[in-house]
C-alpha cells in the first residue's frame, strides 16, 4: 500500500504538468488576441507601440520558449494578468477563495448529513414509500439545473415570503471589518459578533441547500446500497439475536461499516461541488471563484478563466488523491498495485 501511495504522489507533478500543457495549448489556439487586450484600439496601427507591447508581454518569443516561461511561471504561482480586472489572476483568486470554500463546506455538510440520513432510512424501510421518495429526491437533486433552482427558491423564499435574505454573502448595507480567515462565520465567532454570525448563516442557507442537494442524491444512493449489503451480514444478525435495539443495530453496527465506501464518494463529490459552485455563485451573487470564472468566461478573459481552471484541476486532483489514500488506509481488504493503470 505504501508503494501505491508513493506512486500516486509521484504521478501528481506529471499530471499537473499535463494539465498546465493543456492550458497552454488552449491559450495558443484561442481567437482572443492578447495584444488587443493590452494595446488600445487606436494604437494597434502604431508599429512601435505594438512592438513594445510584444516585447513587454513576451509575445515576440517562439512558442517553445513561451511554453517554458509559462510553466515556470505557473510553478511559482503566477497565472498571468486578468484582461478584465487588470490584476494578477492569482491575487484575484486568493481574494475570492474563502467565499467559495465557505459555501462548499456548508453545502458538503448539508449534503452528507441529509444523504446519510436518507440512505439509512431508505435501507431500513426498503421498497416502502419512504424508499421511493428518497430515490426521487435524490434523482431530482442530480437532475435539476442549479442556476434555475436557485432562481426559483430565491424568488419564493426571499421575494415572495421574505423568510430569507436576498443574494450576496451579507446584507447589502452591512459593513464589517474583514476577519483573519475570510470565512464570515468563523470570523464572526472569533469576534464574538452573533448578529454577524446570524446574518452570514442566513445568507448561506439557500445557496448551500441548492448546491448540496446534488450531493445528497449521490450519497443517499450509495449509503442505501452499502447498508443493504451490511444488514444481511452475520454480525448484524448476531447483534439482533443478542437483543440489540434496532437503532443500535442501524447506527452502531451497520452504518459504521457502510460508511467506508461512502468515504470515497464524499471525496469525489467535491468535483460536483466545484461544478455546482460555479453556477450557484452566479445566481446568488456570491463573490467567490465560481462567479469570477463565469464573469471571466462571459468577457472572454482568457488568463482568468484558465487560471481558475488550473486551480480547480489542482484542487480536484488533490482531493481525489486524499480520498483514494484515505480509502486505502481505512479499508484493509483493498489491495493496490499489480494491476495496470
Amino acid at each position, binding site marked *: 500500500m505504501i508503494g501505491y501511495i508513493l506512486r500516486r504522489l509521484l504521478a501528481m507533478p506529471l*499530471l499537473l504538468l*499535463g*494539465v498546465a*500543457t*493543456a*492550458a497552454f495549448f*488552449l*491559450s495558443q*489556439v*484561442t*481567437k*482572443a488576441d492578447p495584444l488587443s487586450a493590452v494595446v488600445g484600439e487606436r494604437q494597434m496601427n502604431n508599429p512601435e507601440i505594438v512592438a513594445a507591447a510584444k516585447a513587454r508581454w513576451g509575445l515576440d518569443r517562439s512558442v517553445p520558449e513561451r511554453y517554458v516561461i509559462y510553466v515556470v511561471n505557473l510553478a511559482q504561482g503566477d497565472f498571468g494578468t486578468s484582461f478584465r480586472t487588470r490584476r494578477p489572476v492569482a491575487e484575484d483568486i486568493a481574494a475570492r477563495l474563502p467565499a467559495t470554500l465557505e459555501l462548499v463546506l456548508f453545502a458538503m455538510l448539508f449534503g452528507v448529513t441529509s444523504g446519510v440520513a436518507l440512505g439509512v432510512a431508505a435501507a431500513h424501510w*426498503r421498497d416502502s414509500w419512504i424508499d421511493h421518495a428518497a430515490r426521487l429526491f435524490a*434523482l*431530482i437533486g*442530480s*437532475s*435539476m*439545473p442549479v*442556476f*434555475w*433552482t436557485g*432562481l*426559483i427558491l430565491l*424568488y419564493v423564499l426571499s*421575494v415572495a415570503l421574505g423568510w430569507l435574505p436576498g443574494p450576496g454573502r451579507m446584507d447589502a448595507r452591512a459593513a464589517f471589518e474583514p476577519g483573519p480567515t475570510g470565512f464570515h462565520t468563523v470570523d464572526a465567532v472569533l469576534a464574538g459578533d452573533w448578529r454577524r454570525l446570524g446574518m452570514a448563516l442566513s445568507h448561506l442557507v439557500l445557496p448551500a441547500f441548492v448546491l448540496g442537494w446534488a450531493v445528497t442524491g449521490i450519497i443517499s444512493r450509495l449509503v442505501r*446500497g452499502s447498508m*443493504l449489503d451490511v444488514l444481511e451480514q452475520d454480525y448484524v444478525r448476531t447483534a439482533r439475536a443478542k437483543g440489540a435495539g434496532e437503532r443500535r443495530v442501524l447506527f452502531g453496527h451497520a452504518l459504521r461499516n457502510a460508511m467506508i465506501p461512502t468515504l470515497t464518494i464524499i471525496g469525489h463529490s467535491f*468535483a460536483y461541488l*466545484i*461544478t455546482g459552485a*460555479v*453556477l450557484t455563485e*452566479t*445566481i446568488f451573487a456570491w463573490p467567490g471563484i465560481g462567479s469570477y*470564472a*463565469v464573469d*471571466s*468566461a*462571459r468577457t*472572454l478573459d*482568457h488568463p482568468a*478563466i*484558465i487560471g*481558475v*481552471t488550473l486551480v*480547480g*484541476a489542482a484542487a*480536484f*486532483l488533490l482531493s481525489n488523491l486524499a480520498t483514494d489514500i484515505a480509502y486505502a488506509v481505512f479499508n484493509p481488504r483493498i489491495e493496490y498495485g499489480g494491476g*495496470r*493503470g
Partner: protein
Amino acid sequence: MAEAGAAPRRAARPAWLTAPVILGLIVVSFWIAAALSADLWGLADPLRMVARRLQPPSAEHWLGTDALGRDVLSRTLHGARFSLLIAVVVVGVAVALGSLLGALAGFLGGWVETGVMRLVDVVLAFPPVLLAMAVAATLGPGLENAAVALIAVWWPVYARLMRGQVLEVRTREHVEAAVACGVRPARLLWKHILSLCWTPVLINATMDVGQVILLAAALSFIGLGATPPTPEWGAMISAGATQFYSWWIAFGPGMAILTIVLGFNFLGDGLRDVLDARSER
C-alpha cells in the same frame, strides 16, 4: 408495478422494463415528440414579438411572454430541439471517439495505450464545468462550439471504460480460440471483442445524455452556448434571471430541463439496476 402473485402475466413484460424505465421512457418520448411537433400546434412564432412584453401566464399565453413579447410556451417547446440535438451529437461523438481510442489502447497496448491513457488522465484531472467553460471561451460563443467543448470533456470517460472492457474480454477463451484460428486483428477486435463490450458503454451513455443537457444549458446560461434569439433553455433562463420579478420567463425552460434530465436519469438508473447485477436490489 405488477404484484408478485401475477406470475402467468410475467412473460408479457421484459425484465428490463421496470417502473423507473417506463417512467423515463414516457418523459423522454414526450420531449422527443415536442421537439418534432413544435411547429404543428399553431403556436406563436418563437422568434417574433406576438404580444405585450412581460405578460404573466394567461389563457392565450400559457407560460406568459418574455421581455421581448415572445411566447414562452412556444419557445420552450422549440427549445427541446436544441437540447436534444446537442445531447445526441455530443454523446454520440464522445462515445464513438472515446470507444475507438479506448479499444485501440486496450487492444494494441504499448505506446498507443500509454499515450491515450495519459491524455485521458490529464483531461479527467479537470473539473468538467470549468474545462468546458475554458474550451468554450477559447472557441468563442455559439452552440457548435459548446458542443465541441462538451465532446472534449466527455470522450475520456468512454475511452477509460472501453479500455477496461477490452482488457477484460480479450483474456476470455473464445478470443484465444479465434486467435488460434488465425482471425485477423481488425476482425478479432470488432467481431470477437467489441461485440461484448457495449452494455456498460450504453448504460453510461443513457445516464450521460441528461448530464450533457444540463451542462449544455449551463454553458448557454453563462453566455457561451446558444446566442440570443435562439430559443435555447439555458439562454432563456439567463434572460429570465435579468427579469427577476417576472418569474414565468425562467419557469418554463427550467421545468423543461428538470423533467427531461429526470427522464433520462430514470431511464439510465433503471437500466443500470437491471443490467448491472452487482447493484441489483
